[in-house]
């Protein structure tokens, strides 16, 4: 049943390949124009500095910001840490309360937990079964001492798109800084930091066909001026906010990657969304007892998170040899817990163990989607034949009423 030659990549929300054109723009800065952009006294440095300035302009323009508001980092994890910890340290005299939500990436939740251990109050908003926070709960959670609200734009596991314009409006009205992690959405969804009232925004290059190891943090400079305490010290690069030698080819690649995403954004997202819908249709037409996780009305075009009841995720992945996807099953991660995101949506642990995330991208073809669907369907059918739960369900046993021995 395995064809070792076949390799289909449907894990674009984990990372993307570098687009060939992006790589072309980066190459000169790895060799001939390899200068350090901080070298102010020779042409190598000037050349690199010019490239960085251009990249900064492009990336800023892509979100409606000014070049001076872009801080380059090593990736979205660092950007999120700088936003949360940097704002917390700077604004601690004003208060020690921050608000985030249960389905955020660990690069938000872990810094928040770190602050909590340092005596901060952290409100983690619950989400509904589609993955949305309640705006009323958000408003109610804001206190006198709230200094930052961090809500992601698009969720990495279930693709739910938060209404960040509405959240931004609330934050602005209440005078609280608003950070959004846009790692999954930059280049895919329209973002305008001014109309959406975003004060801080994190993004990464490698989720949008740029290289790994480079990201950015947008830091608003006017109305209000956001000030951050740096977390990396040593040289005063990036206006003192992020020391360290500039990754010149990285930022050049990131800028070109965003430029390309934006040139073709609507057509590309429509094409990918069409393929995703086709995949969903193929799977749900062929198989019963499936559940789409997330919000089918407001979801990233690339994302399909689906549970196949009565089969376990890791065994499904094994049966889908050569097809690269992710599972919410505990067995595929280092922890023994199934996905905390699915749990936050109220998906039962047994269905979380049975979930697969497909994420499509620029190079996904209809043939690949059809082959992946066929392969998934046959794996699920085969494993259901082997599943005691499927057998019991078919016999009419209510699995929720069985006394399991556990383990």
């Amino acid at each position, binding site marked *: *049943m*395995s064809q070792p030659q076949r390799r289909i990549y449907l894990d674009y929300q984990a990372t993307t390949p570098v687009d060939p054109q992006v790589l072309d723009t980066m190459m000169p800065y790895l060799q001939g124009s390899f200068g350090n952009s901080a070298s102010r006294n020779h042409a190598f440095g000037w050349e690199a500095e010019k490239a960085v300035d251009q990249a900064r302009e492009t990336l800023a323009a892509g979100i409606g910001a000014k070049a001076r508001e872009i801080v380059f980092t090593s990736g979205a994890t660092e950007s999120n840490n700088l936003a949360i910890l940097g704002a917390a340290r700077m604004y601690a005299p004003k208060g020690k309360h921050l608000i985030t939500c249960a389905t955020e990436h660990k690069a938000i939740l872990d810094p928040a937990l770190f602050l909590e251990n340092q005596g901060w109050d952290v409100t983690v908003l619950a989400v509904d079964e589609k993955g949305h926070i309640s705006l009323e709960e958000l408003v109610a959670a804001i206190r006198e001492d709230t200094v930052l609200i961090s809500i992601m734009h698009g969720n990495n596991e279930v693709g739910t798109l938060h209404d960040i314009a509405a959240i931004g409006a609330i934050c602005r009205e209440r005078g609280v800084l608003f950070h959004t992690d846009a790692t999954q959405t930059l280049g895919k969804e329209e973002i305008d930091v001014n109309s959406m009232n975003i004060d801080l925004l994190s993004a990464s290059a490698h989720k949008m066909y740029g290289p790994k190891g480079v990201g950015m943090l947008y830091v608003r400079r006017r109305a209000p001026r956001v000030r951050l305490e740096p977390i990396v010290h040593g040289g005063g690069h990036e206006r003192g906010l992020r020391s360290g030698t500039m990754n010149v080819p990285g930022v050049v690649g990131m800028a070109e990657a965003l430029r390309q995403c934006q040139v073709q954004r609507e057509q590309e997202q429509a094409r990918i969304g069409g393929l995703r819908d086709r995949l969903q249709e193929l799977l749900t037409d062929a198989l019963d007892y499936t559940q789409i996780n997330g919000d089918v009305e407001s979801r990233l075009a690339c994302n399909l998170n689906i549970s196949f009841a*009565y*089969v*376990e*995720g*890791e*065994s499904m992945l*094994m*049966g889908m040899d050569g097809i690269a996807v992710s599972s919410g*099953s*505990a*067995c*595929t991660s280092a922890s023994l817990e*199934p996905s905390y995101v699915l749990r936050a949506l109220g998906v*039962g*642990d*047994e269905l979380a*163990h049975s979930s697969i995330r497909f994420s499509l991208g620029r190079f996904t073809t209809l043939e690949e989607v059809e082959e992946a669907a066929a392969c998934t369907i046959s794996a699920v059918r085969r494993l259901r*034949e*082997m*599943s*005691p*739960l*499927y*057998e019991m369900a078919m016999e009419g046993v209510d*699995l929720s009423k*069985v*006394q*399991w*021995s*556990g*383990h």
Partner: protein
Amino acid sequence: MAYSDKVIDHYENPRNVGSLDKDSQDVGTGIVGAPECGDVMKLQIQVEEGVIKDAKFKTFGCGSAIASSSLATEWLKGRSVEDAQKIRNVDIVEELALPPVKIHCSVLAEDAIRQALADYQNKQGETAPVAAKEEA
């Protein structure tokens, strides 16, 4: 995670998938694990004159759980009931080269064997059939 060749073999060609009549007097059934933990194994034996003539399994779980239960049925067939008590999870770990994070799969398989044997022995000792889920 890389799987051993033996795990892959059992996953791709599972031995003895299926079900026996759980109400039959000569059949012992063990069901262990829980859906929310991501592993449920059902293991059944059919005994004739003290010897396990047939063994079947169905497993909801990862590849290592499937392989552990598939291997267990293979080892059970042809053994005496007494001999079957001697199967240990460490033997399964060794045979399948399970990594530490998958040892619980072998423990589950050993539990399923013990429960199936106990169920069979209960049926022999008592007239009324005993449910397999007594440990719950």
